[in-house]
Structures are given as structure tokens and as C-alpha cells.
């Protein structure tokens, strides 16, 4: 006769699982972070502990995306979530849904409250985010006249694309009344002729320092701006309300300027290649014309007045002569890529795109822009970022 109440491990574990998960399906716990790991999958794993106990926690990337500070070991936090049991390991943890910084307190709560409010009003909607101009001529900046942010931004502009004009509206970027001056700056730039994009920002600082960018008056001014706004506040880890409302968030003031200016070295390289490409195209063109003329001369020469023939040959020779002169000037850059010009102006060289997994198909030196334009019976080549592969012929 079997003994009563002998359970399998699995059976017991499932009963524990049911018991725990039912009893602790919504808990709010405070403790200190330790062993924090930001897994490459985007999920967070950490331990929450105090002097007497500890508990494992996980936070899925879908949830931790909404945490706007960088958790660090030793930080005091408040988490909310549910207990889950993992039978294969026989352990339990908190599946964390929300996390806030217990050390910051009031400001953090004000931040969260305003964020929720503005989000529900639609101020953060992706659909209202506007495109930035490709080559801006006039950039408005709202920041402190004396701050590092302004120096960083003008240095970036001078280095990357000095053909722009910067219109500064100085503002107070921390302390009482600062948010109002920032909002006023945005309004002034909206009334200024020709401003195509506005950057608001300041350098790094404490949460208190960055606070003007977390105030409703700033958020509303960004929202009401007719001109696209880039928000570049503090450092990479700092998120502000104005970041969420802005058309584009930049990690830093410098990054904001880099986002909106094409890089002149890219443009120069592209211009060189463009000239070379142009010369190559002309060379092909004229050779082709010359072949036509030659065969014409051979076949029908006797029936055409001699002067006329001489005249057209001269014209062709003159064209070739001019062409060779131009090519002399461009000898160093005789690898033609006309499209690179456009690519350079789109804020980045083509290789950056290729490295993301795109490739260019070329046939007879030209970029094939559609499947219909490819003659699969003839040879063509595929340019990856690291190498070019020639294809003798392919079938469709």
C-alpha cells in the first residue's frame, strides 16, 4: 500500500507556483539594486536586496523601455510586478513591470505624472513628428548664451557645415523662470523669417538642473512650434519631457547639431566623385558619337561634301580635347558615383547604409534602380560594404 501524499517534484513545484503566483500577482517592493545586468536582448536582470534578504528580478525590454534613468548597482528603487516561479530551476523572481528611483522622490513623481498626462493628450504621438530639412540654411537655437552647449553646437556647425546661419535666442536653462524663457525663445524663432529647424538644449547636470526641460510650459511650446524642434539636453542617459515632445531627440547638444547638418567632408568627396562621374559619362558619350561619325564617314563619305565632314570631325576633336583637359584636373578621382552626392547630403555616407545590410547592383557602371532595369542576361555586379561580387549572368 503506497504511502499517502508522496508528490513528484514537478507536482510540488506546480503547487508552489500556483500558490505564489496567485498570492503575489501585484506587489510593490523597495530595495537596493545589485548585480544589475542589461542583457543584449534588452531585458534586464538584477537582484533586489536589503540588509536581511534578496530576491531575483527580471524586467522585459518592453517594460524597461519606459524607465528613464539608468539603473546602477546600489541604487534604491521601487519596483512593481508579480511573482513568477520557474519550475526547471525551482526558483522564484519578481517579473517587474515598473521601476522608479526611490532616491529621487518628488521630482521623479512629478516627471512621471506630467509624462502620463501629456502622453494621454497625444503630445508624444509619432505621427506628428516632422521631417528635418536636408540642408538647412537657418537654424534657431534656444539655450544659454554662456553655456558649454552653445559652444559645442557652434563648433560642430563650423566643422560640419559652415554655410548655415545660426539664430540664437538666449534663455535661462536652469532655475526659477527658466522654462518660460525657453518657451518664449521657441515662440520668437517661430516668428523669425527663414528659420527651418530649432534646437533647444543645455549641457549635462543634475535632474534639478535639467528640470526646465521637464516642465509643461516648455513641452507645450515645443508642441505648438510650427518649425520642427530637436531636443538635445544633457547626456545620453538623460531623458526629458521635451525629448518626448520634440520631433527628434538628440543625445547631446552636439549630437543635435550633427543630426541637422550634412558633413562637408562627405559633400566634398561626393562633389569630387560627381565631377569624375560626369567626365566619365561625357567620355562615353563622345566616344559613342565619334563611332557613329566614323562609320558614317566610312560608309557614306563619298556622297557628303568634304567640308561638312571636316567640320563635324573638327567639332568632335575639339570636344574630346576639352574633355581631356577636364579629365586631367580630375585624374585623382576617376571613380564615378553620381548617386553618392545625394547620399552624402542625406547625412551619411553610403557605406553606413550598406553596413546595415543593403547592397547596390550595378550594370555597365550604372546603378540599377529597379528589377525591370536589370538585364539579367548580361553581367552585373553587387556592391556590399566590404566587397564587390561580379555576376556573369543570372536568370530571373
Amino acid at each position, binding site marked *: 500500500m503506497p504511502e499517502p501524499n508522496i508528490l513528484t517534484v514537478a507536482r510540488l513545484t506546480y503547487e508552489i507556483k500556483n500558490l505564489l503566483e496567485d498570492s503575489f500577482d501585484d506587489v510593490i517592493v523597495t530595495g537596493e539594486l545589485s548585480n544589475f545586468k542589461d542583457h543584449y536582448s534588452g531585458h534586464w536582470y538584477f537582484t533586489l536586496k536589503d540588509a536581511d534578504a534578496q530576491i531575483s528580478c527580471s524586467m522585459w525590454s518592453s517594460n524597461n523601455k519606459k524607465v528613464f534613468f539608468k539603473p546602477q548597482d546600489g541604487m534604491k528603487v521601487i519596483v512593481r510586478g508579480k511573482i513568477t516561479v520557474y519550475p526547471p530551476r525551482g526558483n522564484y523572481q519578481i517579473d517587474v513591470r515598473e521601476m522608479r528611483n526611490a532616491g529621487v522622490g518628488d521630482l521623479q513623481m512629478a516627471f512621471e505624472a506630467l509624462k502620463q498626462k501629456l502622453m494621454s493628450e497625444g503630445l508624444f504621438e509619432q505621427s506628428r513628428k516632422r521631417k528635418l530639412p536636408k540642408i538647412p540654411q537657418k537654424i534657431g537655437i534656444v539655450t544659454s548664451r554662456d553655456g558649454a552647449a552653445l559652444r559645442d553646437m557652434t563648433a560642430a556647425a563650423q566643422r560640419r557645415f559652415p*554655410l548655415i546661419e545660426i539664430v540664437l535666442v538666449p534663455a535661462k536653462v536652469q532655475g526659477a523662470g527658466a522654462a518660460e524663457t525657453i518657451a518664449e525663445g521657441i515662440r520668437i524663432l517661430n516668428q523669425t523669417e527663414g528659420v527651418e529647424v530649432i534646437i533647444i538644449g543645455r549641457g549635462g547636470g543634475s535632474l534639478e538642473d535639467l528640470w526646465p526641460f521637464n516642465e509643461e510650459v516648455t513641452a507645450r511650446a515645443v508642441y505648438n512650434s510650427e518649425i520642427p524642434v530637436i531636443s538635445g539636453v544633457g547626456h545620453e542617459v538623460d531623458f526629458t519631457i521635451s525629448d518626448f515632445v520634440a520631433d527628434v531627440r538628440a543625445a547631446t547638444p552636439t549630437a543635435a547639431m550633427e543630426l541637422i547638418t550634412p558633413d562637408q567632408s562627405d559633400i566634398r568627396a561626393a562633389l569630387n566623385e560627381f565631377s569624375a562621374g560626369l567626365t566619365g559619362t561625357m567620355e562615353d558619350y563622345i566616344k559613342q558619337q565619334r563611332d557613329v561619325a566614323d562609320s558614317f564617314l566610312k560608309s557614306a563619305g563619298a556622297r557628303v561634301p568634304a567640308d561638312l565632314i571636316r567640320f563635324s570631325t573638327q567639332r568632335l576633336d575639339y570636344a574630346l580635347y576639352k574633355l581631356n583637359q577636364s579629365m586631367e584636373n580630375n585624374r585623382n578621382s576617376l571613380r564615378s558615383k553620381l548617386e553618392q552626392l545625394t547620399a552624402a*547630403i542625406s547625412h551619411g555616407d553610403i557605406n553606413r547604409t550598406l553596413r546595415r545590410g543593403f547592397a547596390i547592383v550595378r550594370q555597365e557602371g550604372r546603378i540599377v534602380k529597379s528589377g525591370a532595369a536589370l538585364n539579367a542576361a548580361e553581367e552585373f555586379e553587387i556592391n556590399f560594404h566590404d566587397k564587390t561580387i561580379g555576376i556573369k549572368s543570372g536568370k530571373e
Partner: protein
Amino acid sequence: MGKSKETKFRDKISRLEEIASSLEDTTLDLEDALKLYEEGMILAKECTEQLKGAELKITELKNKLLNDIAN
């Protein structure tokens, strides 16, 4: 003065893009092709020159609220 120069840069770039696509037209006659070619070379050179000599222009507007606070 500065403004018209900058306008020209952006316009020049779009003109260059037009020239590039026009030249792909194989039915273009020699005179026209040469004209486009020369125009393109000149524009490309001008653009490069323009970048070389450029100095960032910064103007400052008054923020009335800021003065109120300062005073």
C-alpha cells in the same frame, strides 16, 4: 549677401542632381551634352570653393523674458 550665397548652395546641389540625370539621356545632342557637362563641372567647383571659405554666421535675438529676469 550671405543669405543669397547659402540659397545658391542648396540650389546648386539640386541643379547638379538634375544635370546628372539629364546626361543619362542618350538622345541628347553633343552641344547640349557639352553645355550640361561644363555647367556641372563649374557648379561642383563652386560648391567646393564655397565650403572652403565659409564662416559660420551667428545672429542673436532678444529674449524679452530673459531681460525681465535679469533686471
